[in-house]
């Protein structure tokens, strides 16, 4: 098992290198640091000296890949690629446009993001599985049909509608929770509950429908027929057999999303003023702060790869038939 995990981790290395190369190409070749400087300084104050000063202040005044003026190994290390891109590997994200350390901000903002995303994930999973199992229980009836129709309708509504409508209804009209913001400690739940709830509602259509199909597929299998044949009640069949076996693809399917919970959700956080990583990214996008966006792209990829790794491991745990080759 350990050897398997180590091998999977080693597989992830070339992918991370690829991600790093893509971000470097995207952020430094499509637009050179000169272009970025021109954009950040605005059209009026652009002089060659100002651009050079801007670049020097932020450490962009180096050659891209190879520095012929430096000595020895510094020919490679004293370059933009090494300083700005390779350094991402040891999570040295550098500084944002306003001079603050990005790593520090990320550590600070992980908590609020997780406070929204974790309840959303757990409650959502519980709700979707419950609904899907209910629909599967009533399969073929008009209740099932109505449920599926509602799912398709819910899938067709923009996520923005749930956010805008939910905030208006619950916070403004009914005055139940604050409209936006965030508090520390115990007070946080008042700010967390609405965005988490909206996140759950937003995913209800697609997930319920998907899980319903998984359960139905499971129900058409032979072991279910055997269970029925030996006289088990439908309830026992459903909870004892179908639910347990259906949860395997569902759980292994959602494992990939667990590490990404740290990043939070972009729109929800920015709309509810939650100081998490999602709103951090949105603010960076709006301010065109490329250092932050680059850091988040890399961090997101790392977390996704960790998620894939967890998925592989959970597969082997859930299903012993899968060989660890």
């Amino acid at each position, binding site marked *: 098992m350990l050897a398997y995990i180590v091998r999977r981790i080693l597989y992830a290395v070339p992918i991370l290198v690829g991600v790093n190369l893509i971000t470097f190409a995207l952020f430094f070749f499509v637009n050179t640091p000169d272009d970025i400087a021109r954009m950040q300084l605005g059209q009026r104050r652009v002089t060659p000296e100002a651009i050079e000063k801007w670049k020097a202040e932020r450490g962009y005044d180096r050659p891209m890949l190879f520095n012929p003026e430096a000595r020895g190994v510094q020919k490679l290390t004293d370059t933009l690629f090494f300083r700005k891109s390779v350094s991402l590997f040891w999570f040295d994200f550098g500084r944002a446009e306003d001079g603050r350390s990005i790593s520090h901000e990320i550590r600070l903002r992980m908590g609020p993001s997780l406070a929204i995303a974790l309840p959303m994930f757990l409650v959502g999973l519980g709700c979707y599985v419950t609904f899907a199992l209910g629909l599967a229980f009533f399969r073929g009836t008009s209740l099932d049909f109505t449920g599926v129709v509602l799912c398709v309708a819910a899938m067709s509504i*923009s996520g923005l509608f749930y956010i805008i409508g939910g905030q208006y209804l619950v916070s403004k009209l009914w005055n139940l929770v604050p409209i936006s913001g965030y508090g520390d400690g115990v007070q946080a739940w008042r700010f967390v509950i609405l965005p988490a709830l909206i996140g759950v509602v937003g995913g209800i259509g697609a997930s319920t429908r998907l899980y319903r199909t998984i359960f139905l597929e499971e129900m058409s299998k032979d072991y279910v027929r055997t269970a029925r044949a030996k006289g088990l009640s439908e309830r026992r069949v459903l909870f004892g057999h179908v639910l347990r076996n259906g949860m395997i693809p569902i759980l292994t399917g959602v494992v990939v999303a667990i590490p990404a919970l740290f990043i939070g959700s972009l729109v929800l956080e920015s709309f509810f003023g939650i100081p998490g990583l999602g709103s951090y990214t949105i603010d960076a996008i709006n301010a065109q702060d490329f250092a932050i966006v680059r850091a988040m792209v890399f961090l997101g990829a790392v977390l996704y790869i960790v998620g894939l790794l967890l998925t592989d491991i959970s597969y082997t745990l859930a299903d012993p038939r899968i060989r660890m080759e």
Partner: protein
Amino acid sequence: MPFKPVILWTDALIFLLVAAIAALAWTVRRDEHLRAPWAKVARSRSGMCALVVLTAFVVTGLLDSLHYRPRLEGTGGAVNYGAEVRSAFDALADGLRTRTERTYSAPLATHAFSRESIERAHGTQAREYPRLRHGGAHLEDPHGERWPDVGRKTLAGAGLALALWTVLAMLLAALLAMRHREGIDGALSDLVHGCTEVPWRAMLLTAGALLAVAGPVWVLAGSYHVLGTDKVGQDILYQTLKSIRTGLVIGTLTTLVMLPFAVILGLMAGYFRGWIDDLVQYVYTTLSSIPGVLLIASAVLLTQVWMDNRPELFETVSERADVRLLFLCLILGITGWTGLCRLLRGEALKLREADYVQAARAFGVRDARILTRHLLPNVMHIVLIAAVMDFSGLVLAEAVLSYIGVGVDPSMISFGTMINNARLELAREPMVWWSLAAAFLFMFVLVLAANLFSDAVRDAFDPRMRSSWALPAALRPAQRLRAGSA
């Protein structure tokens, strides 16, 4: 000429797509074996009703894709064309475009939404709701006459719709009668009782419902703002109708961009195996491990900077916005091909062991020919299902991206920009709800129709995977995008 035709980049691609679909339809028509699954789609009631609605949207979108620049009047000998690019749809809905108010007005209102200071005739000032410039301007006494007038116009519109619908139904009956070589009475009775193979009755009812909404709106739009006006006084109905094209372009052109990557690389990886397979797998794993929204956001931001630094490339504002839309489609396509590619690789791995492929190889058929003649036709159903299923996700994604600020150009009307502009209006007192409601409603109808149609297509083409198991959700780019952002 009174106008100069303008073919924007996206227009050209849209018409290319239309031509491709027409060519595809023509091939399918001639081939019994290709026709069978489509005949199954045609028998699906929900699918065909959705198709009627989609057709209405597509016609609007296509009309909005015929662009031109109107000729300017009175410039002597020299011929000058306006800098503003308009479309055939703009020409049809000229009233909606030009009849702007000063600021907000509620749906069907005759007076402005907020009080303004008005100079009275004898020099005193008063704060009251001023009359609108166009909304209900024909009424002498708006308070008493408005609702009777709206009622009359609605009835007139409904009558118009009924007349049109009757003509449509009769034409259809005549067509069916001709095809089945029976009397028109028989065809009509089949139609009424719903015992035709294609669910014509349901389709007619859907068309009737559409007409019943469109007719009154058409008549009312002549003298009112049916869905109100926005902050700068532009008609909301006009904006929502214009948004349709943007949504359609994003939903279709992105797929057009993504298909070559997914099909060529996926098939090659699965067929050749070896280092090609390793390379393709490496590329798509790397690309798909970057969270979709972040990759799209950074790519859009960077093209934006690139375009800002090169203003000389674009002649008009529309051209600039159009190129940005094209870039958005490109970016969505390049970040979104990985899921389909993975599926196609798996399918090609299976197919290369099939007897007919082995036989072709034994006969010494060249690889390129095997790929195009034997593999490609046998994965087309997967490609089609993916293309149809991605559409609705992409329309929804556009709204989210424009809302984040990395979507279409702010000057381009789209559902996303409408929602973005209206996001703070709910906080006003009293609230301005109509522009959000209109954008969400139109988007909902479009996406719902697309979802229903794609379900019908999937059920017809992939009997093994009935109802929602065709593409694992996590692999679908649009799903990934939605999961990550909303």
